[in-house]
């Protein structure tokens, strides 16, 4: 029951905010943050309890079945945490509608990650596109981006739909996520897997299906892009873990090489582009294309250690990409630009901002002792154990490149001589600092003791 509350609360709150008569920023933010925090609590209280209600009996069994699995619990926790921070950090125009959208986004994504039924998963898969779409349409830089985002991901959603239907018909039930089911085999399996895989690859995204992502990430307002890049991009990877490997392991295994190849290409491709981008948000966007390629490789390897690492890395990436986007948002807010060429020397006057950005960037480039490193190391050890050498080497090259472009990002913003033409800036105030502090703290904790994620 509590799990249902966890999902419905943000949805209801979002709808209520829309009904709020007029724009009242303080009320809006208070409500939004309060709800987001409460959701964190309820999620933790709910733990892995379940709630189920019959939906379909024909043509296959389907149920409104919610409940966290050990894997999805952490992703959901990440989601609620990032959402809380992001909502707290929201300072856009038309705040009421924006926060409402953020809450709807949180609710729909909670539904996705807590869904134990494939059909439900597919439902929320499409549903979670809508808030982002309106976010892009209402606050983005080019409306066209919204359409690109929507069309790409909706196409993925459709193949997901077809695959789900086929799975349900053949398997007789879609109420299968997170329970020990006999894996699906036979002539159908590869096609069903293809349907799922396409959707997941688009969403992650993985090369060459990623072109919707850079404009989306650079176009969205920082709080929303923080949530999208941190958690929504994990929907695909979670799908690979909870659906691909759990229900169609043979298909995943048979087509592991293409998956890993795409992951490897993404790793290098994203990293190389990030080296030369001038738009700071795009650097992070391409970096996440690169970083998530690593998880794709881990999934392809199917090695137990690598999958543990994948979970750690999913969480880690969520944390540092959210932090990076929020902080870059603060920078842009102060400077009215996010072009590296026009920025510099912010660090002197903004030690807190610089320090926070530094931690986030270091976590992203895999500094030992922070979460990113633990994930990378476990993943690569596992992949190497599984006998794949070339993806490991590619990943190592990408790590070097990552250190190059992330330092470039940090230094070009914070270091160097102060630009003459930039206005006098104030450092993060305690409230702003509070919106990123939890993420950075979590980065350190997970980095020092990642075992917490699988000792549940």
């Amino acid at each position, binding site marked *: 029951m509590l799990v249902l509350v966890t999902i419905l609360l943000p949805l209801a709150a979002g709808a209520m905010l829309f009904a709020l008569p007029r724009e009242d920023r303080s009320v809006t933010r208070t409500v939004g943050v309060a709800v987001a925090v409460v959701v964190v609590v309820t999620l933790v209280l709910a733990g892995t309890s379940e709630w189920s209600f019959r*939906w*379909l009996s*024909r*043509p*296959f069994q389907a149920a*409104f079945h919610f409940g966290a699995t050990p894997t999805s619990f952490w992703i959901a926790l990440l989601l609620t945490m990032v959402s809380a921070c992001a909502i707290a950090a929201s300072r856009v125009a038309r705040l009421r509608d924006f926060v409402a959208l953020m809450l709807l986004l949180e609710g729909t994504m909670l539904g996705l990650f807590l869904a134990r039924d494939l*059909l439900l998963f*597919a*439902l*929320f898969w*499409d*549903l979670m596109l*809508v808030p982002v779409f*309106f976010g892009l*349409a*209402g606050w983005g830089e080019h*409306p066209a981006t919204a*359409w690109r985002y*929507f*069309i790409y991901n*909706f*196409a993925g959603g*459709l*193949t997901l*739909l*077809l695959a*789900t*239907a*086929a799975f*349900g*018909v053949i398997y007789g039930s879609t109420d299968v996520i997170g329970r020990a089911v006999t894996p699906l085999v036979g002539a159908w399996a590869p096609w069903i897997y293809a349907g799922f895989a396409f959707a997941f690859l688009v969403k992650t995204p993985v090369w060459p299906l990623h072109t919707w992502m850079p404009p989306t990430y650079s176009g969205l307002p920082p709080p929303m892009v923080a949530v999208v890049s941190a958690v929504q991009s994990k929907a695909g990877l979670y799908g690979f873990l909870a659906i691909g490997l759990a229900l169609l392991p043979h298909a995943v295994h048979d087509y592991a090489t293409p998956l890993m190849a795409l992951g490897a290409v993404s790793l290098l491709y994203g990293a190389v582009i990030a080296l030369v981008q001038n738009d700071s948000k795009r650097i992070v966007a391409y970096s996440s294309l690169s970083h998530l390629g690593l998880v794709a490789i881990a999934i392809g390897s199917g090695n137990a250690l690598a999958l543990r690492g994948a979970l750690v890395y999913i969480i880690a990436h969520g944390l540092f990409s959210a932090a990076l986007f929020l902080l870059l948002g603060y920078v842009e807010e102060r400077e009215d630009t996010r072009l590296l060429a026009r920025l510099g020397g912010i660090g002197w006057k903004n030690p807190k901002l610089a320090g926070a950005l530094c931690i986030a960037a270091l976590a992203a480039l895999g500094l030992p002792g922070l979460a990113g490193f633990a994930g990378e190391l476990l993943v690569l050890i596992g992949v190497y154990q599984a006998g794949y050498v070339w993806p490991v080497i590619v990943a190592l090259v990408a790590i070097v490149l990552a250190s190059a472009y992330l330092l470039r990002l940090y230094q070009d913003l914070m270091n160097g001589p102060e630009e003459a033409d930039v206005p006098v800036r104030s450092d993060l105030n305690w409230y702003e600092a509070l919106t990123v502090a939890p993420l950075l703290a979590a980065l350190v904790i997970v980095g020092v003791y990642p075992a917490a994620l699988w000792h549940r």
Partner: protein
Amino acid sequence: MTLPFTSADWWAVAPVSVVAVAALLVLVADIFSGRREQRYLSVFIALGGLIVAGVVAGRQFGHNYNAFFGGFLAGGFATVFQEIVLIAAAGSVILYAAMGPVARVAGSIAIMLWSACGAMLMAGAANLIMIFLGLELLSLGLYALCATDDRTSSRESALKYLILSSTATAFLLFGAALLFGATGSVQLADLANPSQVSNPLFWSGAGMFLIGLVFKLSLVPFHTWTPDVFEGAPLPVTAFMSVATKAATIAVFARFIYAAVPASVQERLLLPVWIVAGISMIAGNVGMLAQRNLKRLLGYSGIAQVGYILVALAGGTPLGLRYALYYLTAYALMNLGAFAVAAAISRDAEEGAHLHTYQGLARQHPWLAAAMTILLLALAGLPPTAGFLGKILILASSVSAGFVWLAALLIVGTAISLYAYAQVIRAMYAAAKGQPSQARPFVPLACVSAGICAAAVVVMTFYPLTPSNVLPLAH
């Protein structure tokens, strides 16, 4: 002399009769009513009649009855389709009250109700005569309705509809005659015996009969009339046509393939229909792209949507029929809701048809825009709407029936359709550019209807009512 019919026979057609009488009442009331309240009076009488008919029909659902020597099968199957037709009629009649002033309301409403009678007859028709009768009753009414407006486009649509539809009807009749020749019986049930498999009369008859039906379903390449007629006809008529005609025709089609086609040849006999359905799913959706007129756009969309419904039937399984009904219901609600919104924002009969009218609707009537968004997303098959669940069910049944290629075409078509429906949504949420968007009328009745449709479309996702006991033939 005494008629050979029992009271049960009359009870079987009671819903139809109620509607017919309601139409008469509308006309009579119109004589005695003054100018001002005229159209509201007619609308409410009509709605009352439709509701009564709906209740009566509902009473029949449980028990199937074979009336008029097997000419009309009441209950179950017929009831469900009749209810859909009644919903369509109600949803369209309301629009007369919702829109700005339109000519000849009472007459139009009466004719519409009689057309509804035809559609209801088709829903229950079990022999060729009844099918033809119902079809013509429906069509003749629509010919007239198309012309009720004073615009040239309205008259033009009437002419086109008249000529093309009559031609198609002629095909249907000729096919019916051949089928009669094949068996010597007009009963669909008698066609189903395997001896027909090798009868050329049966094959050619079935072929021409299907041509007539496929035309009414406006599947490519028999769709050419649809966009023009949808655009030309008055808004309520288009709404009615887009739902009632399709519902009634699908009833006949379903009954034909389930009851009249020998199972052994079903696949070979119906292949062309599935092919045109597949083509329609693509053609209809791409046709929607870059349309500037909502009615025309929905005309093309209807072409594709019927394609989806046929995909559900493709399996020829009872389950498939139930999913077809589910999606048909959903489709009816989506279309009626969309037309209700169109009516709600139009000061004259046509304004709601033009997409530029929707510029910045979200600012003025956010809830109306929200309803429209839900309805359009439902048409596109996005959650949490019946369109989404319907698609899942259709995909499931077609996959289980082995029609994967149809499922694939459905997916492709849907992907395209989203882009097309999105044009409208985009217009609504784009800031009204150019002219300061003029204050729009706010017609509660239409808004209520739109709201009900939108809500129903959402609720249907969570309570997927796919009626059981819808046997095409009572055995």
